[in-house]
């Protein structure tokens, strides 16, 4: 949908490709910004001006902005946003508090790994939506099932990544630790744990995405409040502009939380220098 710059006969490796590759970071950002603007304008034209697509199903950007204003003015945005954020944060915290120690234990003890591992993999492979009706039956219609689904969604990526990080600690670094006289505890503290840190953050990033999906699913399928409930209410009353505005906020939340994890990683593990892309 944003292939405008690529249009024309110049699709090959030379020409525009070479020109783009040669741009400075600022230049690239500039081109991207222009792209975004062009895309928004075309979207507006196609839906809003020419009316080629029914705006009920895909409202134009201006309508979405207006929907946002309506949500704020109507006073429904803040309470729902707060409830969602609260459920998300609580669920995520529960997941991290359980997953990190268990993952470390799994990584350092073979019996733990062989018992918890297969069970965790089996649950992780199943989309968490399958557990949603159970959560609803057990925890009622409030924030409970949302917290539950967020926690279950975030738990396993963190757990399994931490365990994998411990297990795959580079053998030759362990050897170096032994040669230079590290005791068992020192070996854990200065070799195993630091080398697990990048895995932990990879797990957390993955968990952010999955937790957000879990939150939305739980709220869509049976919650009276939260962003998911807001989206459903707006859609059911054909106020798709408001629904899209709410979706945009959820997207911003997901991207923002991923960014937070990345920032914390940069600060806590500066040696990886990898960032998000």
């Amino acid at each position: 949908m944003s292939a405008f710059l690529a249009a024309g006969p110049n699709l090959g490796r030379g020409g525009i490709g070479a020109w783009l590759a040669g741009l400075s970071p600022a230049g690239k950002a500039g081109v991207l910004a222009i792209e975004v603007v062009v895309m928004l304008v075309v979207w507006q034209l196609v839906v809003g001006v020419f009316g080629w697509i029914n705006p009920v199903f895909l409202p134009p950007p201006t309508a979405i902005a207006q929907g946002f204003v309506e949500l704020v003015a109507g006073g429904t945005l803040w309470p729902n946003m707060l409830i969602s954020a609260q459920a998300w944060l609580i669920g995520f915290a529960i997941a991290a508090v359980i997953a990190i120690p268990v993952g470390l234990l799994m990584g350092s003890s073979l019996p733990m790994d062989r018992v918890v591992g297969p069970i965790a993999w089996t649950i992780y492979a199943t989309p968490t939506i399958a557990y949603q009706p159970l959560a609803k039956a057990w925890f009622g219609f409030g924030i409970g099932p949302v917290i539950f689904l967020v926690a279950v969604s975030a738990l396993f990526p963190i757990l399994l990544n931490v365990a994998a990080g411990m297990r795959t600690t580079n053998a030759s670094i362990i050897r170096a630790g032994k040669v230079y006289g590290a005791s068992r505890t020192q070996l854990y503290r200065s070799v195993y744990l630091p080398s697990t840190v990048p895995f932990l953050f990879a797990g957390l990033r993955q968990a952010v995405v999955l937790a957000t999906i879990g939150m939305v699913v739980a709220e869509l399928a049976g919650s009276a409040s939260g962003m998911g409930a807001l989206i459903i209410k707006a859609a059911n009353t054909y106020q798709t502009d408001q629904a899209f505005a709410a979706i945009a906020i959820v997207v911003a939340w997901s991207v923002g939380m991923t960014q937070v994890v990345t920032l914390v990683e940069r600060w806590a593990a500066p040696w990886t220098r990898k960032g998000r892309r």
Partner: protein
Amino acid sequence: MTTTSIERNEAGAPLISVRDLSVSYDVARTGKRLTAIEGVDLDVHEGEFITVLGPSGCGKTTFMNVVAGLVKPTTGTVLVGGSPVTGPGPDRAVVFQDYALLPWRTVFDNVKFGLEMQKELKGAGWRERVQEAIELVGLAGFEQSYPRELSGGMQQRVGLARAVVAEPRILLMDEPLGAVDALTREVMRDEIEKLMAATGKTVLFITHSIEEAILLGDRIVVFKSHPGAIKEIIETGLERPRSERSIQHDPRFLELRDHLWDALQGEATAAAVSK
């Protein structure tokens, strides 16, 4: 050609004494056992510089790992300072073939790693020692860099500094100059030579370069493969200090070089044929 016995004609008990050592690995994938080295005998005296030559995969690293205490002998004994090796110890430091630096530590923190593990950071002067070692390997100015910001050769030099600063009695070096460019290599060689002469450390030095083996070694241990074993041990008998230039035309150097060349070439072809 004078091929000496496993023991050098020198008084006193050897610092390292290896008798009838063999190591075999369990290869998990195939369930077979692979004999890496077999029947190795070697005595090394305090202050000696031993270079180890041999075709790739003949078990040089394995041998060094046994002396370091990282690999247990399958049969045979290894004594260091008269007592059997049961594991790694502060009397031995290793420069690893694959550097084995801690990616989350800066150059400075990597070099101080050995001191830290042995809780020697309390006394005064450790900073200077670390700094000195970093300067010795020519990495001044890179103290705060992370390993991934360094070239392979630079990382290898960090490994060297880390070993030197731990002040072991025995330095085990596994191709420590393998990834270093020719010029730096020459400089580092000279530095190692001087350092070892000055401190009188005992060194086991694995290399693939015949010239390097001659230039640095008091004795050269030549390994053969299939299974890995010592083929011969040669005393270089060259005057110290040596330098690349001074021995280039020394007839003894040329003689040794030709001899080693033939020995290794024979090994390499044998290895290729047996495949």
